[in-house]
Every structure is written in C-alpha cells, then in structure tokens.
C-alpha cells in the first residue's frame, strides 16, 4: 500500500469504529428503556370499554412512547464529548506539567524551528511548541483543530535526537494534527468515560427491574423465555461495554499511529529519519513518568514503558495502544525502499 491508500484505509476504519461507539450508546440506552422503562414502540394498543359503550384506544403512558434512557445516554455522551472538546487539550498540558519552549536555549530553538518547518510542509499554521520536563524519549500532540494545536516533546527527546530525527518525530505529530487525530482521540477518551459511566449505571439498576415482574409482562407471556435470554445478553453486553470500548479505542489509536508514521514520511520525504528516531525511542524503555495513562494513546510511543510493544501476536494486537515498534519500523523501511527504488509503471 502506498501512503494515499493507507490514509483511505485508515479513514474507513475510523469511521467504522466511531459507528460502533454510537451503536453502543444506542444499545445501552434502548435496552434500558425496553427492560426497565417498558418502552415499546411496537406494542399493541390497549383497548378498553369506555363509559359511552365504545371500545377506545387507551393512550400509552409517556415512557412507552419516548425512549428516555436512550435520549439521556446520547445526551451524556454528547455532553462529555463537548466538555473534553473544550477543556481536554489544556488538561493534558497541565497534567504533564508541560511548559512553552524558550527560544534562548539552543535545543529548544531548534525544536521551535523544526515545528515551523513541518507546519510549512503541511501548509498549516505553526502549532505551539511545548516541552515536557522528563528525561525519557516521548512526544505527543493535542488540540481540537490545526489552529489551536500543540506539539510537546520531552527534554530527553531534545537532547538525544539529531535535527533530522526530531523532524521525523515532529512530522509524526504534525500529521496527527493534520488528520484531526488529536480531536478524534480527545473525543474518543470522553466517549470511553461516558460508556463506562452508563454501563455502571445500567448494571446497578438491575435490582429495580421493571419488565417481567410488573405490568409489562402481561401482554407478552408467550415470549417469556426469549425475554430472559435477551435480557441476559443485554446485561452481559452492558458489563463488557467498557472493556470492548477500550479495546476499540486502542484499535483506533494503533491504526492512527501507522497513518501518522506514513504522514511523517510524506512531510519530510525522509522515512530514514523517523526510522532512526523510532530505534532510539525503542532503545529507551524507561517509563515516561510525567505522562500518565490517560494521555498514553496520544504519544508517539507508549509512555508506560511496558514491553508490550515488543510483543507480537494476539495479546499485543488487543491490548497495546501502539503497534509493535518492529512493525512500524518495518512499514517505514518499506516506504524508504519504495522512494529510493520507484517501481516502473506497469504497461
């Protein structure tokens, strides 16, 4: 796959994953409505003999017609997403104790320059350059749009990298910004939180069960067994939702890393620089103390310093926020090879 095909494939994947998130909200909300609030749009209208001697359709009570649970679930999701949209980037910077890079320092001057260069290559306004006081090698980008974006690197990165390698790293973060990954990951984190909250709430409401015990059961006596099975499936889904959404978020994050690596190569036209930068990062396995778990999926490499990125196979495919370094480096090496040896056009 070349750079452009890779970008298209990644975009499709992201759209799919976001759709699954929305589906989760609907599932939790609608299930809650159905099982607890007796919401049922398809229910047979109840008829009763009116005082005038006619059979009249009894108007259904409010929870039967309006899916309150779903609406509340969607509102909470949207609210949390909006909150993180406006406050998230600032919170990330505060939690990592980042400070603005100062032009007086040689290395930081270089960093500011490199950020401006990558912005020129991407045709975007230059993001603010921040420095994280930590000796480990890491970098992240945040912000909701290219206009208010921030790129932060650790002090260790500035010390250890050459100018070209730093360019590769900043190019990687710059393409996160250009692809609006920073916005997506901020919202993704909020949705994950919202799902955890809702699933907890729905799970705990079990003891107040509505349908099955009270009025709702009378008109569907035949489907009793089916109801129990459905209910069990729903409860299991609700309990597993936070876990599944976490796995999904990690999947998004992993795809985005490959895309950003490709984008960095496209901006710098020099995949070799990012390869040697990643090699250096790989060699430094110490955890980045200043960066906590919540920001993990925004960094260029997992700040926890766990060796999960060295592993391949199912565990790593499911549980890591970043793809294995080996795979990333291999993908870049293929790109470097392709730029040096352009394929002859097929006749």
């Amino acid at each position, binding site marked *: 796959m070349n750079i452009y095909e890779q970008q298209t494939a990644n975009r499709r994947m992201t759209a799919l994953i976001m759709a699954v998130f929305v589906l989760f909200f609907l599932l939790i909300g609608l299930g809650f409505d159905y099982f607890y609030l007796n919401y049922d749009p398809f229910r047979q209208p109840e008829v009763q003999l009116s005082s005038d001697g006619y059979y009249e359709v009894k108007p259904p009570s409010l929870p039967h017609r309006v899916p309150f649970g779903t609406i509340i679930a969607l509102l909470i999701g949207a609210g949390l997403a909006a909150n993180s949209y406006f406050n998230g980037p600032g919170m990330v910077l505060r939690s990592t104790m980042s400070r603005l890079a100062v032009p007086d320092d*040689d290395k930081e*001057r*270089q960093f500011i*320059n*490199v950020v*401006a*260069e*990558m912005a*020129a*290559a*991407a*045709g975007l306004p230059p993001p603010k350059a921040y420095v994280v006081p930590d000796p480990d090698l890491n970098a992240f980008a945040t912000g909701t749009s290219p206009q208010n974006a921030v790129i932060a690197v650790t002090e260790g990165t500035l010390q250890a990298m050459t*100018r070209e390698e730093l*360019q590769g790293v900043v190019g990687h973060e710059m393409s996160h910004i250009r692809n609006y990954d920073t916005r997506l990951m901020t919202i993704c984190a909020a949705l994950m939180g919202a799902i955890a909250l809702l699933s907890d709430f729905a799970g705990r409401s079990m003891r107040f069960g509505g349908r099955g015990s009270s009025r709702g059961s009378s008109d569907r006596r035949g489907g009793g067994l089916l109801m129990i099975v459905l209910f069990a499936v729903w409860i299991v889904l609700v309990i597993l939702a936070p876990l599944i959404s976490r796995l999904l978020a990690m999947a998004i994050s992993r795809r985005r890393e490959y895309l950003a690596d490709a984008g960095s190569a496209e*901006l710098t*036209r020099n995949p070799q620089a990012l390869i040697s930068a990643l090699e250096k990062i790989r060699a430094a396995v110490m955890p980045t103390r200043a960066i906590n778990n919540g920001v993990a999926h925004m960094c260029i490499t997992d700040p926890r310093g766990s060796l999960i990125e060295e592993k391949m196979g199912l565990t790593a495919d499911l549980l890591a926020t970043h793809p294995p370094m080996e795979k990333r480096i291999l993908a870049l090496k293929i790109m470097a090879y392709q730029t*040096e040896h352009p394929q002859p056009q097929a006749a």
Partner: protein
Amino acid sequence: MTVLVIVLLVLAAWVIFTFNGLVRLRNQVANAFRQIDVQLKRRHDLIPNLVESVKGEMKFEKETLERVVQARAAAVSAGQTGNTGEILAKEGMLTQALGRLFALSENYPNLKANETVKSLMEEVTHTENQIGFSRQFYNDVVTKFNTAQQVFPTNMFAGVMGFTPSQLWELPQDSAERETPKVDLSV
C-alpha cells in the same frame, strides 16, 4: 420551456461553483508562493552575516564563499525584476552554493564550537528547510490548481474565465540537485 429554464439554472449553478472553486485554489497558490517569498527574503538577509562570521575560519574556501555572495546578489536582483522563471533559476543556484558551503563547513570543527556561527547555521538551515518544505507544499497546491483547470469539462471554460495554469517550482535544468545520488548496496 420549464425544462429549458431548469437546465440553464443548473448550468449557471455549475459555472458559479466551478469558478468559485478555481478562485479559491488560485488564492491558495498565491498564498503558498508568498510563504516561499518570505523565506527567500529571510535567506537573503541571513547570508551576509553568515559569510562574515565564517570568513576568518574558512579562508581557504574563498571561491565557495564568493560564489555564495554572487549567487545571493543575482537572486536579489532577480527578485526585484519579479520574473518568476528568473527567480526560480537564481534561487536554485543560491541553494546549490549554500549547500556546498555547508558541506565544506563540516571540515572546520572550530566553526561548530563558535556560538554565533552555530546559531547562525541553525537559522540558515531552518530557512533552507522552510524554503524546501514551502516549495513542496506550493507544488502540491499548484498541481491541484492546474489539474482542476485541465479536467473535462472545466478545461473548456477555465481559459475564458481568465485562469491560467501556474508554474511549478522546479529546479533549474543544470542544477546539481537533479543528479541522481549514487547508492552503493554492495556491503
């Protein structure tokens, strides 16, 4: 009659849509070019300082230094004429001369120890990179603009509406940068 009116309206909408799209792209091209222009001016301003500060140390590279100074003068005067083709050629030569100066400066460890030279070198490198990356972006935008004009059916109207293809920022014909670097894989 109604059909005719509808067809005419749709055509008019299409023409307006296309025209606005092309105008937007043309402004993007102009803006991208201005970004390069800013950096070129900056480079012209930086070079005299750089030459002045390395002159003492690199006295055996007189020829290279002179070529940089000459190339700068030629580029500045080309910039005043405003002829795009001329600017491209002269700036390309300046890039080349500077590249040679930078390569030679590697042989002078004393230069690296000098704080002033070091920060000047960083500034010139930064400007060089900015020019390179802005050029890359400019070419991308120009390609988009030209393609938008040349696709059917826009190609029948673009000329009439006053759009002309923009020139790509290419290296001059005789540039050393054009030579394919030799890669030796026999390790």
